[in-house]
């Protein structure tokens, strides 16, 4: 750890001692941690000196550190090491020169590239590429381009050619465009892939025109991918070319273009996409629909609404669907569609209303459910109202509207509205459902008790307990009691509160089944309070054995946790 400490706090005075560790196979890298970090000339001197005598991996490590420090004084030394027989050493030297990237380093690398043995040529090429990159960043793009071109013609692995080609394209700035497009046409797939990624970072707008032209002439497999590259340049993409490809030609290319429009399209693409969305080809129509749903821009929404009055048949259905998916405010237009004789249109309108209607217009959707204008719309209207109600930010106001409508609804519709109120949730909903469960109407009793029984918050506890005691029918009492016990089981609450709920449940239970459920909850949450309750439950003849087992289990768990349970227990006689 001393070396780490010196890395953070050491000065040049520490260098001599650190240098002594460089020949040690176990400690060399620790020393270099400090030597790379300590500023000044002394670490560089030490590393250079060590490089004169070390061999093998230790020498490689030292060279690497020289490269990290970008020690220009080491260039001559590194140039000598380029000729080392040890390929790892020569390779390390090449990469270090690439990191230093001054004129001398560049010269050394360029002179060695074509004569280097095959075992090291890849690293030499890497050094050249690194060097060129730094020169380009320093504004010496002409020299950088020369180096890149050299590498491109060398007998080196394809990946080096890929890197050099990218560099050669970008170093030339706009003049690199012909090389980029030439790379697109390479039969070598790795170079084609390189063209795709480089096109995404190529500056200016000329490249977008070139990509559009290339896409048209490329084989379908390649055109598919060129479109994606085009779409990754959304500010300057040639939209007309993408749109045209979406409309005609090879199916895969069309699919790629349709997907691309999701990112770069605008309202001008609407007519074409609408046409494709009703195409017989399921792949194309689904892709177009998804793109239409995601097409960016408020002007797209405006255009959809503007198209609505004159649309018919499948187109009208599609527009209504989009209004719902895009959450467009077009209530009047959608309501007009409810008067159509075509049920498919009416259903699409109802679904759209479910997604878009606001609280102040909810009454119109409620009316569709309550008044049954068209019997075969009933299910869709109910679903739509359910979706809309669940969306409302003011739950209480929504429930109030639904409850008011419930009063005047038919017997068959009342439970449906109650279900929807259940889906809204909240205090007001709980109140309405509780009242329904206690009403004289058998269907409402059934629906209300069922909804309460599966209520997903502890708020329902008082209503469930009351229902468990006073519901008109035993089966609803049981349902309510089970729901009550379920709340004690599922939700986070204090030990005392949970024990209280279980105690009340036991008091209300008339059947062994529910008593057992309460006992299960008691066992599940061991505490002093539940232990006390288990002990007192032993007094119930039906529960003596089970309560005894529960008490013992709880006692065991509490004792294992170090809790003192004396004074709580009493054994049965």
């Amino acid at each position: 750890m001393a070396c780490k400490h010196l890395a953070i706090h050491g000065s040049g005075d520490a260098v001599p001692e650190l240098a002594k560790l460089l020949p040690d196979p176990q400690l060399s890298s620790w020393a270099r941690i400090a030597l790379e970090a300590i500023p000044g000339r002394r670490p560089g001197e030490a590393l250079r000196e060590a490089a004169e005598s070390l061999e093998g991996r230790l020498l490689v490590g030292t060279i690497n550190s020289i490269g990290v420090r970008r020690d220009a004084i080491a260039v001559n030394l590194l140039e000598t090491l380029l000729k080392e027989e040890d390929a790892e050493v020569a390779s390390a030297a090449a990469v270090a020169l690439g990191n230093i990237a001054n004129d001398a380093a560049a010269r050394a690398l360029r002179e060695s590239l074509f004569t280097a043995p095959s075992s090291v040529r890849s690293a030499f090429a890497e050094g050249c590429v690194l060097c060129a990159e730094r020169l380009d960043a320093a504004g010496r793009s002409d020299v950088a381009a020369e180096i890149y071109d050299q590498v491109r013609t060398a007998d080196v692995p394809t990946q080096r050619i890929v890197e050099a080609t990218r560099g050669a394209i970008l170093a030339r700035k706009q003049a690199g465009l012909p090389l980029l497009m030439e790379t697109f046409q390479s039969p070598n797939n790795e170079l084609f892939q390189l063209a795709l990624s480089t096109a995404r970072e190529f500056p200016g707008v000329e490249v977008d025109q070139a990509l559009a032209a290339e896409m048209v002439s490329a084989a379908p497999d390649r055109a598919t991918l060129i479109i994606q590259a085009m779409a990754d340049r959304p500010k300057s993409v040639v939209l007309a070319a993408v749109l045209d490809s979406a409309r005609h030609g090879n199916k895969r290319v069309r699919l790629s273009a349709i997907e691309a429009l999701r990112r770069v399209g605008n309202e001008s693409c609407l007519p074409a996409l609408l046409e494709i969305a009703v195409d017989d080809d399921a792949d194309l129509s689904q892709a177009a629909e998804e793109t239409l749903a995601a097409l960016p821009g408020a002007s797209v929404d405006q255009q959809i609404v503007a198209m609505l009055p004159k649309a018919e048949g499948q187109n009208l259905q599609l527009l209504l669907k989009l209004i719902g998916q895009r959450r467009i405010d077009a209530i009047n237009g959608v309501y007009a569609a409810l008067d159509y004789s075509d049920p498919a249109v009416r259903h699409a309108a109802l679904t759209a209303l479910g997604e878009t209607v606001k609280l102040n217009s909810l009454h119109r959707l409620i009316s569709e459910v309550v008044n049954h204008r068209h019997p075969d719309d009933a299910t869709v209207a109910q679903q739509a109202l359910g979706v809309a109600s669940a969306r409302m930010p003011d739950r209480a106001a929504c429930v109030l509207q639904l409850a008011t409508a419930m009063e005047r609804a038919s017997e068959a519709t009342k439970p449906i509205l109650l279900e929807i109120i259940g889906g809204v949730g909240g205090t007001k909903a709980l109140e309405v459902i509780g009242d329904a469960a206690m009403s004289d109407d058998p269907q409402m009793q059934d629906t209300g008790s069922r909804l309460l029984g599966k209520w997903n918050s502890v708020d329902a506890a008082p209503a469930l307990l009351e229902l468990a005691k006073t519901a008109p029918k035993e089966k609803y009492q049981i349902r309510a009691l089970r729901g009550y016990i379920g709340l004690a089981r599922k939700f986070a609450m204090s030990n005392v509160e949970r024990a209280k709920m279980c105690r009340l449940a036991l008091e209300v239970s008339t059947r062994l089944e529910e008593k057992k459920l309460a006992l299960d909850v008691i066992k599940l949450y061991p505490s002093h309070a539940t232990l006390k309750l288990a002990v007192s439950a032993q007094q119930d003849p039906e529960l003596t054995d089970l309560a005894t087992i529960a008490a013992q289990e709880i006692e065991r768990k509490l004792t294992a946790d170090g809790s003192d349970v004396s004074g709580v227990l009493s054994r049965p006689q």
Partner: protein
Amino acid sequence: MSNNQSQVHRRHFLKTSATAIGASALAPTIIPSSALGRDGAIVPSERIVVGGIGIGRRGGYDLGCFLQQQDVQFVAVCDIKQKRRGEVKQIADEHYGNQNCATYRDFRDLLDRKDIDAVLIATGPNWHATAAMMAARAGKDMYCEKPVTKNIAQSLILAETMRRTGRVFQAGTQRRNLPHFAFACELARTGKLGKLKKVYAHPRGMQAMMSGWLPAEPEPEKDIVDWDMYLGPAAWRPFNKKLLDGFNFEKGGGLVGGGVLEWGSHCVDLCQWAVNDCLPPVEYNAPKNGELVARYENGTKLIFREKGWIPLGSCPVRFEGETGWVEAGDSGKIVLSSPELLAGHEVAEIGGYPATYHVRDFLDCVKTRGQPKGNAVAACNAHIACHAANIALHLGRQVKYDNTTHKFINDEPANRLRSEALREPWRL
């Protein structure tokens, strides 16, 4: 805002099949019948050939996600442990019904294979950056587990290397491809919360975690456990079995120990996305009252905090703007300051942070050469933020970072912590 921009998009034009991911938000991707070979298998030209490096516990999970994808052919595994090589080979062979999965002890042999297109890197954190860059130089794309780097210099070199080599890099920060996190980040990015004031990340610990040096034990035979290769770029220390597996060698965090990186690399990544992937914060303060506060150039604060979260599971994030806030976590749920923010949108709640979508995103980008969501630049910026925070934590004071020079301003001690020498013969 479109109602499904935060959904994971399907790529109909790619000849892939969506896997059974159980999310109602996604429907199966359609494969045109022309793309299918006999019996519906993906034709070889459309397959991505994958090798695995260091497939342990986490890697095993990632591998499962890869094997679910029909267009993946997993052909090789490399591990320094013989036992693990055998275990992973068995998984692959059973999956394909053959004996074809090759095994390697030295990952350079795996990288030498011309047929391998991409690698899954799930080694210990000390290897992530080095292995990723070697894979890139070997012409492979990679899915690399987090934390992807040990220090600021590694983060910068990683981004540079992926640019230079044109390779596709996906960090294992899979939350960017989960709908509820994506929705939360989109609210922040698109101004729905008003001007963004604060973004919060849960680091899961703000202490440095240093492995150090344990007593020497007899070193196993190389073929059983290759200790030298296991150490890799980490400075030498004697073999001790306690150092095998899991998170060792300064918890991925170089000289200072990566306390903030554990969940920070996930949560800060999401915070970065919320601030539109801008450059990392320019100021980092030592922790105070359980919070480490950093500040972006535009004044927005990045706050690492341990407590005070709504219980939404692990890796929670919170974004606060002038008019609203959102909080999300690994339970799949989000909590909003107002239901209006949901605006009737349906956001799929996918709990448990599955990596399936992230793997699919990676594979799609391998084909299109686009940038996946956890790309090298995004990972670089998120990791720099974590490393800089760790440096402030270690030094116990404020540090200021310059995103142009990539150095701390007039702060030699902090700058010394930006990088760390690698053990020979490894380099970045």
